[in-house]
Structure formats: C-alpha cells, structure tokens
C-alpha cells in the first residue's frame, strides 16, 4: 500500500496538481493503447478505406474479410494458406516445450534447494549464465547438432531448443521458491521412510501451485513470442507463427494489404494477450522475479 500521505487539506494548488497528474497518466495510457487501436481499426477496413482515410478514421462497416484472409488464404513467403497452419505449429512447439521445461525446472529447483550435493550450488551459478548469454553464440553449433540428431527443421527440434535454453529460467524460478521451504520438513519425511519422489509428489508439489503458474505463463510467453530460434531452426512447414507473420508482412509480390497484415499480427498476439489479460498478476510476478535475478 502507498504510504505517501495526501495532504489533508486539499488546497486549490493540490487540486490542480492532481488534475495535471491524471491528465499525464491518461495521455501516456493513450500512447500505449494507440498502436493496438490502430491495428484493430486498420484490420477492419478495406484497402480503399485505408488509402483514403487516416490511421484513426473509423471503418464504414465492420469488415472481417481481412481476418479470414489472414487466417486461411494470405500468402506467407511461398504458400498461400494463411497463418493458421503456423499458428498451430506454434502450439505444437509451445505446449510440449512449456510442459517439459517446467517439469525439469521443478525437479532441479527441488534438488538445488532441498537435496544439495557437493557442487550443486556452483552448478546453479554456472547454469544462470544460460539466462544471460546472447543466443547468437550458440546458434551455429546448435544448427549443426540438430542436423546430426536428425531433427533439423522439425517442430521436435524447436521443442528441444526451447527446453534446453528454458530450463535455466525455470530452475531459477523453482529454486527461489523452494528456498523458503524448511529443510527439516524433508528430513522428517525421510526418517518416516519417504523417498525422493514421494516427498516431491506428496509434500513439495501440493504447495507449488503459484510458482507453477508463474513459470508456465513465463515460458508460454517467451516461447510463443520467440523469433530467433524459429527463423534459424524451422523448416518451410514448421515455422512458428512469428516467423510466418514476418514473412507475410514482408512478402513483396502483389499489392500491400495492410488490413490483412494487421489482422494477422493481432491473431499472432492473441494467445499471449489472453494470458496477460486473464493472469496478469502472475505474468508480472514472473517478469519481476526474472528481472531480480535474470
């Protein structure tokens, strides 16, 4: 809660200041909202309206044609099936990658905070570097490795890459969360004869819901929004939606259809926006937790 006392007697000056304060906040809000509103308006206009109108002029009729075109028949690079197949690719990449990296992160965090062994702290520190390196440093070796493993240009390959470079973050999240669990709890359970996995499953997992939510949301957003790995490691049919969107927007043949571009961009942003709207609290928590250490 805020502790800054607002003056008890509101003088004229205070009132004026507060009006100014609200004005600034609302103008800034307009700045943040404007691009999205323009995208939405543009996606609902036809090409002629776009040519004659301005960014903020309203469409004469609600026209969803560009949305269906973006979804199912717009040309992205070579093929003309809209962005829907790539949207599905993104889900095929994101769902397993989020599930695996979260599970691995939970187990790692559990070991690092409650089953320390010689070198586990050192290893954790070494692993944190993985949160920071610019991925350009690993792109080429990874491309070679994916080729050797026979999963170059496949969705499995992308799942693999996202898991490998996601576990540093997921481990960090779970480790920080499990730090607050007293070690005596594990000790007592061990004396009662409970094993490694029993303790994890019976004692640790039931209290982990908040951190699981934070981690899943963080990973979902990161992987869905990824472009670098997508463009470097995907094949023609396995591109994630971000890559397809970029191809669609930069496709040079034919007249430019900004309404279709904008509809496609909104479609590509919808899943993460939905997560943000429905679970914003956890999203912010992940962001700040990631920032404190990463």
């Amino acid at each position: 809660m805020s502790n800054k006392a607002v003056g008890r007697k509101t003088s004229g000056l205070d009132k004026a200041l507060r009006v100014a304060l609200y004005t600034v906040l609302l103008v800034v809000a307009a700045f943040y909202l404007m691009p999205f509103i323009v995208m939405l308006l543009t996606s609902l206009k036809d090409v002629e309206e776009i040519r004659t109108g301005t960014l903020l002029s309203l469409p004469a009729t609600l026209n969803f044609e560009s949305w269906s075109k973006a979804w199912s028949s717009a040309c992205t690079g070579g093929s003309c099936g809209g962005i829907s197949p790539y949207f599905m690719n993104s889900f095929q990449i994101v769902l397993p990658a989020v599930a695996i990296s979260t599970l691995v992160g939970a187990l790692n965090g559990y070991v690092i905070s409650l089953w320390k062994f010689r070198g586990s702290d050192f290893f954790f520190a070494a692993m944190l570097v993985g949160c920071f390196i610019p991925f350009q440093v690993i792109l080429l070796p990874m491309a070679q490795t994916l080729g050797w493993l026979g999963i170059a240009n496949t969705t499995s390959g992308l799942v693999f890459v996202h898991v490998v470079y996601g576990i540093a973050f997921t481990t960090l999240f779970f480790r920080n969360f499990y730090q607050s669990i007293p070690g005596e709890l594990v000790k007592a359970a061990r004396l009662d004869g409970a094993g490694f996995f029993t303790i994890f499953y019976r004692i640790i997992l039931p209290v982990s819901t908040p951190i699981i939510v934070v981690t899943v949301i963080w990973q979902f957003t990161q992987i869905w929004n990824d472009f670098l790995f997508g463009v470097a490691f995907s094949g023609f049919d396995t591109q994630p939606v971000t890559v397809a969107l970029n191809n669609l927007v930069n496709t040079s043949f034919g007249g430019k259809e900004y309404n279709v571009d904008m509809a496609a961009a909104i479609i590509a942003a919808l899943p993460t926006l939905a997560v943000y709207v429905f679970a914003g609290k956890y999203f912010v928590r992940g962001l700040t937790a990631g920032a404190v250490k990463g």
Partner: protein
Amino acid sequence: MNTKAANTGSGPTQSGRPARLSLADWMPKIVMAPTVIVTLVCIYGYMIWTAVLSFTGSRMLPSYNFVGFDQYERLFNNDRWMVALSNLGIFGGLFIAICLFLGVTLAIFLDQKIRAEGAIRTIYLYPMAISFIVTGTAWKWLLNPTNGLEKMMVDFGFENFKFDWLINPDMVVYCLVIAAVWQASGFVMALFLAGLRGVDGDLIKAAHLDGASTFTTYRRIILPSLKPVFFSALVVLSHIAIKSFDLVAALTNGGPGYASDLPANFMYTYTFTRSQIGLGSASAMVMLGCVLAILVPYLYSELRGKRHE
C-alpha cells in the same frame, strides 16, 4: 548463506551417515544429470565451439583452418559491422535512458493513490506480453510516411508535417527506439512500482514528521533506496538492447540499405545467408563480450553485497 558452509565437504545435506549408499542417495544427482550435461554441452561447449570457429576461415561450412585474429580484423574493417555497432550504441543508450526515465516517473505518478490504478497499470504493461515481431509490424504501419502518422497529421491540417524517419537512413534507428520504448517502458514502471511499495513506511512517516516535503522525501529517501531496482532494470534493459534482433527484422529489416542493422542482425545475416561463418562467429563473440562486460560487474557487486549483509 549458512547452507553453503554446511554443504562444503560434508556430502549430502542430510548427513545421516548411512552405511551403504542406496539408489535414493543417488537420486538427486541422477535427476540433475541431464541438466548438467545439457548446460555443459549446449551453453559452455557451444560457446567454446563458436569461439574456435571465430578463429577459422570458415565460410559456408565450418572448417578448421586457423587464421588467428583475421576474422576480428575483417570484422572491425567491415563498414556494415561498424554501422551496426554504432547503432547499438545509439539505440541502446537512448532506449535505456528513456525507459528508465519513463519507468521511474510513471511509477512515482502511479504511487499517488490513483483511482483505477490497476486498469492504468494493465494498459502500460500489455506491450510486454506481445512479440517484438507484432510490435515491429504495428509500428512499421504507424510510421510509414505514405499512410501513417504523417498522413494523419497532414489530414488534420498540419500540411507541412513531415515524418519520414522510417525511410531516412540517418533517422531510422530512432524508429527502433520508439517501438522498443513502447514495448519495454511499462515493464520498467512495474519494477519501480514494486520497489516503491517495498520502501519502509516508517522512514517516510519520520521524514514527514521532520517537515520534509513530498519532493524532498522522494529525492533524499525514497529514490536512493531504489538503487538495487535501478541496477537490475539497467541490466535487463541493456540485455534486451544487445539481443535485439526481432524488432529490427520486423520494423526495418535492417534498411534502408543496412542503416538500421544491429549486431544480432549482422551476425544472423553473415552466418546464415551470406555463408561467412567465421566472420559471423567473430561478431557473436563480440556480442558475448558486451554482455559479459555488463554482467560481470553486476554479479560481482550483487554477490559482494550479499556477503556483507
């Protein structure tokens, strides 16, 4: 911190001294093993691999004919790289400075018992949930001179309004700044707001009792105590700046010409489309150097600070 002391030398934390090691004692190590292997190979191993490649004459395929520092020499004689590097300086500097300024200011403003604070915060932060590709697509449309903001202002009656930064080689890098600030400043605001809420309330009350004005309280007490938040925001922002790749790809594609290239885009282009693997690897190593130059002092001060507590 005492866990660390207890841990060194005494093997497993639960030092019940079992006579024989059972499977359960190995379980933690077995569970961690895949992560250890993957980290050693895919982070450290690949880093070394790229470093090695940067000293070879590799072109389309990796080859191992060593050429010393030739690639680095070529890199710094390459005009496109120098443009990318100076763009990173301009882009990174402005992006970080503006985000920090906006972030602190908005956080302080929002901390004044604002009605509908939650709604406003949600609006400020939503760009962070969106991909840089979507951000780039949106701003490319807003900033394009034929149909975008320029036309809107002209139609509003400002007939001489000109805004062609997106196609102007001298100004295009500022378009990157605008879009990136739009995306990330709300996040910085959230960081500082969380920091403000964590400031000790008694301290502020005491200052008020001593007759300090709100302005003085902020300047002398609240802001100085936010130093850690400031540093982590700085690290995160510089990290975003150095890694920026998607925004350029979507907003300008490096153009006009290569006027808006950033190092990440240079690396990608030379490694994957121009078959200059050696040169691309050298550029990746320079990027890594930049990140380490920021990170090492930060981690060092973090760890030292912890030890003094």
